[in-house]
C-alpha cells in the first residue's frame, strides 16, 4: 500500500495509458466490424469466408505481430500505436462473428413489417436492425473489452508502457508488491470498463430492462 501511494502519480499515468490502449481498439474494431458483420449476416458465402479469416487472424500470436507491424507501417518499435493496431485487429476478428450473429437473430417478420410501414433502408438499419441487434452486440463488446484490457499488458514486453509494465518491472526486480498492484489495477480497470458498457446499454436500450424481455 505504501508503495502504491508513493507511486500514485505513475500508477495513474499507466492506468490512463492502459485505458486508451484498451478502449480505442474495442471502439474502432467494433465500428469496422459493423458493416462487415452486417454484410456477412445477409449473405451466406461472404459469411463463411469472413468468419474463417477472422478465426485465423485471432489465432496469430501477438508478440510477433507487434514486431512485424512497425516494419509494415513505418512506426517506431516503441510507438503505442503498434499495440493499438494489433489489438484492433483482434477485436475486429472477434467482432465480425458476433456482429454477424447479432444481425442474423433479428426477426425477419419484424424487418418486413418495418419495411411495410415505410422505413427507408437507413431508417430501418438505425431504427430497427441496430437496436434489435443491440443486446448481442453489447455482450460482444463486454467480452472484447475484458480480453483487450488483459491483452494490452503484452505491450509492456515490447516496451510500450501500461499497467503490464508493473509485471515486467516487478519480475525483473523480484518485487512482488509491484506485480500484485499491477494485477489488481488491471482487474479494476476491466471491471470499471465493463460497468460502463452495461450502463451505456441500459441507457441506449431501455426496453431490455423489462422483465422477461430480451
Amino acid at each position, binding site marked *: 500500500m505504501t508503495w502504491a501511494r508513493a507511486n500514485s502519480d505513475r500508477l495513474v499515468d499507466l492506468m490512463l495509458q492502459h485505458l486508451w490502449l484498451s478502449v480505442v481498439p474495442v471502439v474502432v474494431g467494433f465500428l469496422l466490424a459493423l458493416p462487415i458483420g452486417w454484410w456477412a449476416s445477409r449473405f451466406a458465402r461472404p459469411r463463411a469466408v469472413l468468419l474463417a479469416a477472422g478465426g485465423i487472424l485471432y489465432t496469430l500470436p501477438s508478440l510477433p505481430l507487434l514486431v512485424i507491424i512497425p516494419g509494415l507501417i513505418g512506426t517506431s518499435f516503441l510507438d503505442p500505436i503498434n499495440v493499438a493496431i494489433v489489438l484492433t485487429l483482434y477485436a475486429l476478428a472477434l467482432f465480425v462473428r458476433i456482429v454477424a450473429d447479432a444481425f442474423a437473430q433479428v426477426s425477419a417478420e419484424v424487418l418486413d413489417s418495418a419495411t411495410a410501414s415505410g422505413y427507408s433502408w437507413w431508417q430501418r438499419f438505425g431504427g430497427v436492425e441496430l437496436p434489435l441487434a443491440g443486446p448481442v452486440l453489447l455482450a460482444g463488446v463486454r467480452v472484447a473489452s475484458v480480453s483487450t484490457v488483459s491483452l494490452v499488458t503484452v505491450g509492456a514486453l515490447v516496451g510500450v508502457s501500461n499497467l503490464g509494465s508493473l509485471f515486467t518491472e516487478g519480475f525483473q526486480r523480484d518485487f512482488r508488491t509491484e506485480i500484485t498492484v499491477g494485477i489488481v489495477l488491471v482487474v479494476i480497470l476491466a471491471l470499471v470498463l465493463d460497468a460502463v458498457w452495461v450502463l451505456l446499454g441500459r441507457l441506449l436500450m431501455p426496453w431490455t430492462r*423489462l422483465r422477461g424481455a430480451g
Partner: protein
Amino acid sequence: MIEYRSVGKTYDDGSPAVDDFSLVIPSHSTTVLVGSSGCGKTTLLRMVNRMVDPTHGQVLIDDVDIATRGPVELRRSIGYVMQQAGLLPHRRIVDNVATPLRLAGVPRREARERAMDALAKVGLGADLADKYPRQLSGGQQQRAGVARGLVADPNILLMDEPFGAVDPIVRADLQRQLQTLQHELGKTILFVTHDIEEAFLLGDQVVILRKGGVVAQAGSPAEILAAPADDFVRSFVGLDKGRRRLRIAELDGQRVVVDEHGRPAGVLDPTLDRT
C-alpha cells in the same frame, strides 16, 4: 381501384411463385385472396406495396402503374397488417402505432394523439399504450397491428393472414371488429387467408387460388357457392362431402333449417314461407 395486369413472379432461386395473374379490386370493398399455403398469396399482396416487384406484368393503383412510384413513399400511403402483428419489440405500443405517422413527418405530439385514437378504435385501452408488445396478449398485439395499419388513414389496407395466429374465440372477435370498422371506414381492403370461412365472412369479392397464383374462381361468396367452377372449388369450399348442405326439417309443424348433421341453422323467414 387496384388492378393486376397479368403479373408473374419468379424468385431468384428460380421457383415460380406466381405464373400469370390478373384481377381488378374495386375501391371501398373487401377482396379476399384465399388458398392453401405456398400458393402465392403473400407474393401477390406484396406486389401492391412493392415489397415484391413482379418479374412481368403491372400492378396499377387508380390507373397508375406503381412501378413508376418510389417504393418507400408508396408504402407510406398503404396500410399493412401481418400475422404475429410484426410489432417492433423495442418500441412501446403507442410508438409502434404512431410509426407510419412519424415516418410521414407528422410531429411527435400529434402522432401520439392520433395513435391513441387508433388504439381506442380497435378496442385497446389507453393503459396499454405505454407497454411493450411482449407485455400484451396475442389478440391485443394483433389489434395494435390493425391500429398501426389504419393510423395514417390510408385508402388501401393490405392484410396478410392477420388473424391466423390467435385462438378461435379471439379470431371471431377480431373479424367482427374488422367488419364494424370497414362498415364505418369503407377502405379498399385486400385480405389474404387460407381459411375459406374467413374469406366468405369478410369478402365482398373472394378469389380462390391454386398453386402458382392461378385463379380457380373469383366472385361473391354467394356466386361461388351457387355455381362452383370445378371440383377443386367444390372441395375447397367444402361442398363435396355434403358440407354446407342445409335442408328443411319439419318440427311440430314448424320448418327449421338444419345442416348436414341435423343441427339447426335457423328457421325459414315466415314472410317468405307464405309465398
